[in-house]
Every structure is written in C-alpha cells, then in structure tokens.
C-alpha cells in the first residue's frame, strides 16, 4: 500500500496530528496481557509481527515527513539534543550505513542508495533530498553522519559503546523522548541511565538485560515495546521542556480525556554495529489517543484493565496520577469483562465507531 504522507501535521501548539484507520490498526499496542509489570520482554527483531509496524527494519508511516520536520525544529531550538562523543565516529558511519541500506531495501519507492566504491549517493524522495558523499569522510556530508541520517528517520536513537564489561550511552539523537535527557545522561553506564526506573532493578531486569545485550550479535537485532502516556500528541516530552508541556497534564477533564490522552509506545530496537562493535538503540515513538484505541474492542478492554490494576510505583514514575482515573472511568463502560486473546494483535481489520 502506498503511504500518503501528511507533511503539515503538527506535534505542538496546534496539534493537528491525526491517524487514519490503517494507521490505528498498525499501532504496536504494548500490552500482550491484561496486566503489566516490568520484564525483559526482548524478542528477535524479524520482519512480520502482530501489526504492520513490524514489517520493516526501521518503520516508516504516514507521519514520516511531519516527524522529520518536528525533529528539525527541536534541533534548531536545542542543538544539544544530538550529541555523539568523539570516540564514536566509527559507530556514526555504521549507523548511517545500516539505516540507509535498510530504508532503501524496505522502501525502494521512497529511498535509493547507490554505491560506486566509497562514493555513495543517497536519495530521499519524501524529504526531497539527494546527497553524494564519500563513505568514511565526514567532511563530504553537510553534518556529522549520525546526525545526517537520524534527521531522516522517525524515532530517537542512541549509541552504546561496549567496554569495561558495560554499555555506555555515548551518543544520541533524542528529540521525541519520554522524559529523559541526553545532555544529562550522556556517558552513563547501563545501570546509571536506568537509575530512575522503579522496581525493575530489584527484579534483576537490568542485570539480565545488560548481560543479554553484551552478547548481541551483528545481523541479529532484537526488539521490545515500552510505553507511557502523554497529554496531547506531543513528541518532544523532554525534561528540558517539562515547564512547557507539564501544564498540559492539568488540562485533562472527563469531557476531553479520550481525545487528549495518548498511549505512547516505544518500539525499541537494538543492533550490534559491525565496525565499532557499538550498539545502536532505536526508540521509535507511536502516539494513539484513548479515543482511537477505544475503536478496537480488544485494546479498549485491555487498556482499561492494565491501567486499573497498575502498580502504584509505575503510576508515579510514568507521570500518570493526574489523569489515570479519568482514563479508567472513560473506558470502564466499554469493558464488558469478556476475556481477551493473548498477544497484542487487534484481532480485527475494521474499526468500531468512535466512542
């Protein structure tokens, strides 16, 4: 199916972001069961999956052009949202290669990569870009290679260096984040940058995840889903701009809750990189309003049950206390108590009427 991009939709101020029916049904709904707790929910990142969001190495959807424009705005306002420590240059080129080759293979109608030895030409039709450059020579690109390619991808990316039996977050492009700061966290070890997450340390989640990731193999990427909730379809919920978006949380009412509150899902992917032995971490953000989720019977039942029974520490950490009850109250009348099937698939290819 051909993607119809919506270049003028916005993720701030006017919030004109909206989803087509196809886009709702391809949402990577994050709850495989009716209750949620932290776990090492990592699986191979292979094509095919419960929704269409899993059919490419780097998923592109109808919001691609608008999201790239939003990223450019954030970077213009705060260039430090993209930083890579100097020893990571090989990982920068690894990233450029992986994303260019993947996009060109998965979306040949939109992206083309041609190579004549080290002389590469990259064509990005949705953004109207064509760039010839010499692979490995940063001065032949208009900006450093990691920034160049991640400006043309949806979702955030970080680079992890592996040394001293640990992973260090030594670079990133972070403009669509769920409340964490690259400027603060850059250079941290795996356990340090996950420091603020409650419960999971005690459950050994990070010890196990670190061991697993240190053995990640080139060509065998893995993925997991993570989630939170966001008021308004705002991509940039950074700590830096918390004084700007924080007041949104106090604007939720029982009347507007379904349109205002969005389930925010991160399709997280991890790739071992060939030259640098670093790990590229993709954090692809999807926003779907409670109203749109309520159009899928399985999803509305399950979201209601998960939120109703959520652990208090997770409610606090994810910043939900001001409006969680309103979401539950909105969804409760649509939860008839019928059992739901395992897994995240919507189990339908049509949507119910809005409710």
């Amino acid at each position: 199916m051909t993607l119809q991009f919506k270049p003028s939709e916005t993720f701030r101020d006017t919030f004109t972001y909206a989803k087509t029916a196809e886009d709702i049904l391809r949402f990577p709904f994050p709850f495989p069961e009716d209750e949620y707790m932290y776990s090492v929910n990592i699986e191979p990142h292979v094509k095919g999956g419960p929704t269409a969001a899993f059919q490419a190495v780097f998923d592109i959807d109808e919001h691609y052009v608008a999201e790239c424009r939003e990223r450019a705005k954030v970077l213009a306002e705060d260039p430090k949202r993209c930083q890579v420590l100097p020893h990571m240059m090989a990982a920068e080129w690894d990233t450029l290669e992986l994303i260019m080759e993947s996009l060109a293979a998965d979306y040949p109608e939109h992206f083309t990569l041609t190579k004549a030895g080290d002389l590469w030409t990259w064509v990005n039709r949705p953004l109207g870009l064509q760039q010839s450059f010499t692979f490995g020579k940063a001065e032949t690109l208009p900006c450093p290679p990691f920034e160049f390619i991640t400006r043309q991808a949806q979702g955030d990316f970080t680079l992890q260096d592996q040394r001293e039996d640990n992973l260090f977050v030594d670079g990133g492009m972070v403009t669509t984040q769920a409340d964490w700061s690259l400027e603060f966290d850059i250079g941290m070890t795996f356990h340090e940058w996950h420091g603020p997450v409650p419960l999971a340390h005690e459950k050994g989640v990070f010890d196990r995840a670190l061991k697993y990731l240190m053995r990640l193999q080139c060509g065998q990427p893995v993925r997991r889903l993570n989630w939170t909730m966001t008021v308004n379809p705002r991509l940039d919920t950074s700590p830096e701009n918390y004084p700007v978006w924080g007041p949104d949380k106090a604007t939720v009412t029982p009347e507007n809750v379904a349109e205002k509150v969005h389930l925010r899902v991160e399709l997280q992917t991890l790739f071992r990189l060939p030259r640098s032995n670093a790990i590229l971490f993709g954090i692809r953000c999807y926003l779907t309003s409670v109203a749109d989720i309520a159009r899928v019977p399985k999803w509305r039942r399950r979201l209601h049950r998960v939120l109703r029974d959520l652990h208090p520490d997770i409610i606090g950490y994810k910043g939900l206390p001001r409006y969680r009850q309103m979401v539950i109250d909105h969804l409760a009348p649509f939860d008839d108590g019928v059992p739901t099937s395992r897994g995240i698939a919507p189990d339908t290819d049509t949507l119910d009427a809005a409710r």
Partner: protein
Amino acid sequence: MSDQGIKSRPKYQPIAPEPAGRHHLLVVEGAEVPGGALAEGVSPAAFEVWTVAHRSAVPGAPVMEEAAGAVRTFRSVPHLLGALQERLARERMGLRLYGAGTEPFVWDVFGIAQAAGLGRQETGFAHVGTQARRIFCVHCRAVTENVSTSIVTCSGCGASLFVRDHFSRRLAAFMGVQVDAEVPGEVPEAEELYA
C-alpha cells in the same frame, strides 16, 4: 525522601592502593588527607599526595614529582585541577588516581581522568565532608552549588527545582527538575536533607 531509590547515585568506599597499580596519586580537596578517606591500616605514605591550602602564598612545585610519600600543595581547587590535567596528559600506563573530598570535587577529578583516558578501574573515590550537592538544572543548564535542601531555586532560571537522586558523573551534579511545572506555584516546603 533522602533515598529516592535511584541507582545512578554513586557509592563510595574508603581508598586503598589498587595492587596492580605502578604508582598511586591521591588528590584531596583540603590541606590534609581527611580522616575516613583511607581504608583501615592504609597510610598516606603509600601515595603521592596533592593537597589544597586555600591560600595564595604557596610556592610552586613540579607536576611530575613521582615518589610515594611526596606531598604537593596547591593554592586552590582550580589550581590543583589544572595541574592534574597537565600531569595526566604526560602519564604512562599503570598510574592509579584517587580523590577524596566533596562530591563535586571528586567527580570533577573523575572527569579530568576520563578525558585523559583513564578507565573507571584506574580510579577510586571517597566522599568526605559536606553532603551538600551540586545541582544541574535540566531546563536551563545552570549549576547551583552547595545545595542542602530537597527543593532549591535555580541560580540560572529561577525555577523551584526538586533535587532528584539522579547523578551525572560527567556533570558532577545531581539533576534539578522544576517541582511546579504542572501547576505553577504548587511548591512544597523545602526540607533540609543534605547537610
């Protein structure tokens, strides 16, 4: 609230010379090696020691003095940190670097060590003295020093910052996040926590 359960907060141990080290350099924030900085039974004579006199009339001394037991005195903390950069730039493998002092001091030392290529296993730090914190405002990037309360006014943007336990070794600082961002003016009373 003083332990928010956040795991990026550093843990410290009393300093002892790491057996694999060729030479051991200990830098301290005051005029003497503070009590409690060294592990039981460890003598300051095991280290080359750099101290800070906090006065101007201190004669210069060579940066590369290597003998264990030697003591070099600096006029101020920036004076010591500048010399440390020079020293580490000229060092060979096998040096072990230790720091004892307040948290901002030891992590400034760590930052200089890291920039010079020392790994975490080649350094060791003891936190002695005040528990007061350096706070990095995540909104405006200003640093507020010597914070002993749970909430502090940012020296840069004036926001009322909640002091999170989240610690950046690179910035040698804890994170400050505006406490009333969601409902401006809703500022809880500050508690004295980090004296």
